[in-house]
């Protein structure tokens, strides 16, 4: 079976500074992969390159999504093809109402899939159903997207959008950062309810705690722009206990 995502020797830079130095990663449908690593190791850059952020220059390597070249696609084409990025820092959209935003996003994707656009009633029903998954305060739907939302509300809103858009590949960029334990549980429950045999997840996190709630199938450790160690969920616990230095040492890097 064709993997959902197949990254080979991916190298990327920003302003001539190499960040990704040869990343290899394969994600199959139904799997949850966690990518851990110290700050500055390139985790968020990987997420940004996959989503199509233009600030990054891909120098080498390939990214196949369902067997097709992902890097050839525009940002919005990737989204319509089923790639979703949950932002580490969701963007505020002043004046853009949540409902209008959701309508346009959902219908852009439905249109691409050859489905009828949802009408107002259909959208409201879907919104209600999905908002419940992450306990999103219903009054937020009346506001502008992310404007004046608390950190936790913004993160819930990302997972809520994930639920609304039903992507095939979801990339969660430090969704746990800034969340207290209750919010973390809620967000994790939301993600868990969206796990399915057709969907793959790449969960980027600095801390092991999130992985107590979203239990991954694979854990990868990224150091200095490369995935240097991969294993099962128990690898996350080792990292929690011993920190990242032992991995750096194993790989001949200078400890931080």
């Amino acid at each position: 079976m064709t993997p959902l995502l197949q990254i080979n020797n991916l190298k990327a830079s920003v302003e001539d500074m190499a960040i990704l130095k040869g990343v290899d990663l394969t994600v199959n449908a139904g799997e949850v992969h966690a990518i851990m690593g110290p700050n500055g190791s390139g985790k968020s850059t990987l997420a940004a390159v996959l989503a199509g952020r233009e600030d990054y220059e891909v120098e080498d390597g390939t990214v196949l999504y369902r067997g097709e070249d992902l890097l050839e696609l525009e940002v919005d084409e990737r989204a319509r093809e089923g790639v979703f990025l949950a932002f580490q820092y969701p963007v505020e959209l002043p004046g853009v109402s949540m409902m209008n935003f959701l309508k346009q996003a959902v219908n852009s994707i439905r249109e691409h899939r050859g489905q009828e656009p949802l009408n107002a009633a259909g959208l409201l029903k879907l919104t209600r159903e999905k908002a419940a998954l992450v306990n999103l305060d219903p009054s937020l739907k009346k506001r502008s997207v992310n404007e004046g939302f608390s950190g936790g509300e913004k993160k819930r809103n990302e997972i809520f959008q994930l639920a609304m858009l039903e992507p095939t590949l979801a990339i969660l960029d430090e969704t746990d950062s800034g969340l207290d334990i209750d919010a973390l549980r809620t967000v994790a429950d939301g993600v868990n309810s969206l796990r399915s045999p057709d969907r793959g997840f790449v969960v980027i996190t600095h801390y092991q705690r999130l992985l107590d709630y979203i239990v991954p199938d694979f854990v990868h450790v990224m150091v200095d722009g490369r995935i240097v160690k991969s294993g099962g969920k128990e690898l996350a616990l080792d990292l929690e206990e011993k920190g990242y230095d032992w991995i750096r040492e194993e790989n001949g890097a200078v400890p931080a």
Partner: protein
Amino acid sequence: MPAALIDKDTRLEDRFVSAFEMQEGLSLNGSNDGLRRLRKEAIGHFATLGFPARKTEAWKYTNIGKLLKRPYALTFGPSDDSVSASDVEALLIPDLEAHVAVFVNGHFNAALSRLDDLPEGVVVTGLAEAAETHTALLDAHLARYADSEGEVFTALNTAFTKDGAFVYVPRNAVVEKPVQLINLMTTAEDALVQPRNLIVAEENAQVRLIQSSRATTEVKTFVNAVSEVFVGDHAHVDRYEIQDEGTTTSMVTTLNVYQQASSVFRNSTFTFGGEVIRNNITVLPDAEQCETHLYGLFLADGTMHVDNHTLVDHAMPNCFSNEFYKGILDGRATGIFNGKVLVRQDAQQTNAYQSNKSIVLTDTASMYAKPELEIYADDVKCSHGATTGQLDEEAIFYLRTRGLTLQRARALMLVSFARAVLDNVTLEPLQEALDAMVTARFSD
């Protein structure tokens, strides 16, 4: 009726003065003595004031002289009979029940108007007719609020005042349905049209007005419109102006508002098209507890030029004013916002707010924002803010990661930006119509 062609070789102002002398006994005839006297005084003021030079501060960014040099014909004639109901139909707001007064080249056209179910005592007609039928009201209000001594375009308009809209809402009368004033420009030659509008809302009266204009010809037209609004004690006047002209029409509009105690005046100006548009608004809340709202939205592209000048002159205590203008500039368009709030020494407890936000989409478009607060009272709450920026690239990226094309993402951001002004339109069908116009503008 003859139209006086402006001769190319004489001094610009003199052309108008001689046209005045030629027309005074002819086409400007037939109305009351008061009006005749006003015109005569005004042409004198006009000759003294002269058109703004490039160095005139209030016209710094708008070279109006260049436009006026064109050989526009002055039109005085009666309404053009070739206009049909379908021309009017195109300017009606869908689903909005309104009293409709139609003007052709600035002249009232009763046949095309729909004014049969106005409330008792309410008058909507042409100013020329009102000069015959409502002489006392004209004597009491016409040219009382507009400034012919200080404003050259007002002086010019007053000198050539012939027709325009006259709306009278007597004491305690409430006009439930809005009144739509439509001016169609149909001239076959390049023309200068000078409508003169007078709105009188007496004590405790209420009225909502929608003013729109449209040229149905391809010739160049220049509109120099002056509107005076009297808002009596406890009266409410809501006024909406829609400027959606093609690239062959330029406009100078001057609105002077006089507010009495506890009155509420709301004005919204929507500028979506035109060659050069200059809007002057002056509001004088001349008694306590007045409330004034000025909203504006301008969308300019190509080489369009939009210049909004406003002055709220707080002379009396305990009044509130709020001003909110937004603009989006594309192509090589130019936008200007010069909003002045004057709080005189006696105007204690004034609350005055002003905000101007603009988005400039290209390197070749420009926006000049000049907010001015001049405060002589010591117990007031006033604020102003002006921001000019570009579309937020982060926001566009975010929207694209949710599946919206670049075009749709931009449209959503721009429509949402504009919608903050549309939110203040209380007539729902009008709000929807404006929303549709803005959305269509930015959609692919």
